[in-house]
């Protein structure tokens, strides 16, 4: 057998060079980031609120990475836009899991998208955190991979109803709600609560999101003379509803709006004086009594030039929860992460986070929702008494008696 020829000098040099580059490279690139997928709405009618969510996520990301990240690696958020549509959310989850290979997913904005995306994540065994989607169904499917930070829509209903029962003491109410999952699910909860407490539900009217003219419906409601008019809407519809309620001179004892569209700066701006005296509830307000709450609000205001909505507080807390769970799990393995999430007991600016199973809900954080009233153009917390910074006004002055624009 012929003795092996020594490698030609050029080839030898190149091989050594290549090998050394491959060996050194990982340390040149730095530690690989932990990737978390985020689904939110960046285009379409809910875009302003989706971007509020994104701001919350970004702020938390900055804070965590500034302190060295998680498990010695930086955190990275991979954003997907669902365009406010369910199909968009499903595509987003599939892309995040299949192509982007994220270790966990957070999202979305609308209940409809969240519900669908959660289902897909659950089928694929990836931890899914819901920061904002309210419809009860999201955590009533027995999904072991889906966790929810915010209070479900039945709490929108029950917290507002409790506040109403203890202050306004209505004997009747009328409901007008948008027809997707959020509206329908919340309306159902309101009806159940009313029935349990002997309040007569005179009318339940649903409308298609994006409708331009609510006057016929509002007239119908006016005819039934309810003590309370309870609305469940996203922001654009909420603005038109209040304007048109003024136009048809609908005067219940008080108007109640179930969070979402009613609790945003866009609503105040669009509805103007017509928003005055509206009762609404929220997942969080900047004057919430939790450690870090005021600092978060100030930081947000400084960075983005406007006050944070509760959506931003929710997304901020979500990142904190994930970071905390990753640290306790010590790994990015989905099953370990899920188990760590189950053990969460964390205080955040949004409030305390602990996932529990109760009343048919799984992995649901028992979050309390304060009730606000719009007084002199500002949101004032009026219920429960322990959170309240102002007094609830009821009955509200009829439209004709209010100061004209």
């Amino acid at each position, binding site marked *: 057998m012929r003795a092996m020829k020594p490698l030609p000098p050029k080839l030898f040099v190149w091989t050594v060079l290549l090998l050394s580059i491959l060996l050194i490279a990982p340390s040149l690139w730095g530690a690989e980031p932990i990737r978390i997928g985020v689904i939110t709405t960046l285009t379409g009618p809910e875009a302003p609120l989706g971007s509020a969510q994104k701001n919350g996520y970004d702020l938390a990301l900055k804070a965590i990475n500034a302190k060295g990240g998680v498990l010695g690696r930086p955190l990275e958020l991979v954003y997907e836009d669902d365009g406010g549509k369910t199909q968009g959310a499903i595509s987003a989850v599939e892309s995040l899991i299949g192509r982007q290979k994220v270790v966990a997913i957070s999202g979305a904005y609308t209940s409809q998208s969240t519900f669908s995306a959660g289902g897909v994540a659950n089928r694929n065994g990836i931890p899914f955190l819901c920061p904002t989607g309210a419809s009860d169904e999201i955590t009533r499917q027995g999904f072991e991979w889906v966790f929810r930070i915010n209070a479900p829509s039945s709490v929108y209903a029950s917290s507002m109803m409790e506040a109403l029962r203890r202050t306004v003491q209505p004997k009747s109410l009328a409901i007008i709600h948008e027809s997707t999952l959020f509206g329908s699910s919340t309306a159902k909860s309101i009806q159940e609560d009313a029935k349990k407490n002997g309040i007569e539900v005179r009318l339940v009217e*649903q409308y298609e999101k994006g409708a*331009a003219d609510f006057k016929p419906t509002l007239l119908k409601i006016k005819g039934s003379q309810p003590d309370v008019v309870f609305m469940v809407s996203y922001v654009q519809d909420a603005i038109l509803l209040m304007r048109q309620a003024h136009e048809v001179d609908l005067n219940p004892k008080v108007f109640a709006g179930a969070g979402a569209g009613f609790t945003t700066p866009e609503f105040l*701006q669009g*509805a103007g004086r017509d928003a005055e005296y509206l009762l609404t509830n929220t997942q969080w307000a900047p004057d919430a009594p939790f450690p870090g709450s005021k600092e978060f609000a100030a930081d947000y205001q400084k960075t983005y030039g406007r006050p944070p909505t509760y959506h931003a507080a929710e997304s901020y807390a979500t990142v904190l929860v994930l970071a905390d769970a990753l640290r306790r799990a010590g790994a990015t393995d989905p099953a370990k992460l899920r188990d760590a999430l189950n053990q969460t007991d964390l205080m955040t600016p949004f409030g305390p986070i602990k996932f529990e199973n109760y009343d048919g809900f799984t992995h649901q954080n028992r979050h309390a929702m304060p009730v606000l009233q719009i007084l002199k153009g500002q949101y004032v917390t009026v219920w429960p008494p322990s959170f309240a910074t102002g007094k609830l006004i009821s009955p509200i002055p009829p439209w004709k008696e209010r100061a004209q624009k």
Partner: protein
Amino acid sequence: MSPVLIFVQTLLSGLLTGGLYVQIGIGLSLIFGVMRIINFAHGELMLVGMYLSYALFTIFGIDPFLSLIIVAPVLFFVGAAIERIFIQPVSRAKEENQILLTVGLSLIISNGFLLLFGADYRNVTTSYSGSVFYLGPISLSLPMSLSFLVTLVMTVSLYLFLMKSWTGRAIRATAEDREAAMLIGIDARRMGLIAFGIGTALVGVAGSLLDPIYYIFPGAGGPFTLKAFVVTVLGGMGSITGAMAGGLLLGVAESLGAVYLSSGYKDAIGLLLFLGVLLVKPSGLFGRSRL
């Protein structure tokens, strides 16, 4: 509120909404009557008016009702340009191709606005956006009532133009029988151009009128194209008086349907009425080609 008052209020509310539908649909009726072209971009042309008014309001502080003076002529030229550049070359092509063209136009326009203005919903909130005035116990929206007046003026002017002026009569002649009109020396192509321009100006004005009471976003055109079609076909394609009747009828039907039947299906009620009329009188309420 007594049942009678509720009925009257609902009726008046429906009439005001109907006025808007008339403003939106009348342009389509005119265009179809003269050129027999089904313009799927009609709602997007309204969008041009909406955004133009929005821009004039936001940048120069011009009230949407006042900016009509600018919007109408601008939209006339936009319509004429579209007709000359896109529609005329396919005027002798198959109907399917013409439709495809207008669908393509609608996509380009709405996505163009998506690029320019983003997907955010815009609001034009004027001092009177939510204002009402009262006729006894009946409350009427101030901006919608003003819009109704504007529509009334524009529709009557259109009617007089078509009946009395030479160009108007030439347009009607072209609509009635294109070849005969050409035989007696009418430039049919020019009439088509003018009709398209007027139709676009009318729907652009509708956009401005909608600004204070609705919201503006790139997808706003679609549903209104549908309304325009219903109005046009309901009234009889090509009939101006028909479009007026059709629009008001649609508005009232939706309003009454929402109060007495079901709010969630209010749009369906309008469409059911539309189907019903067509079953009984296929050429529409007022027949066709009688501008």
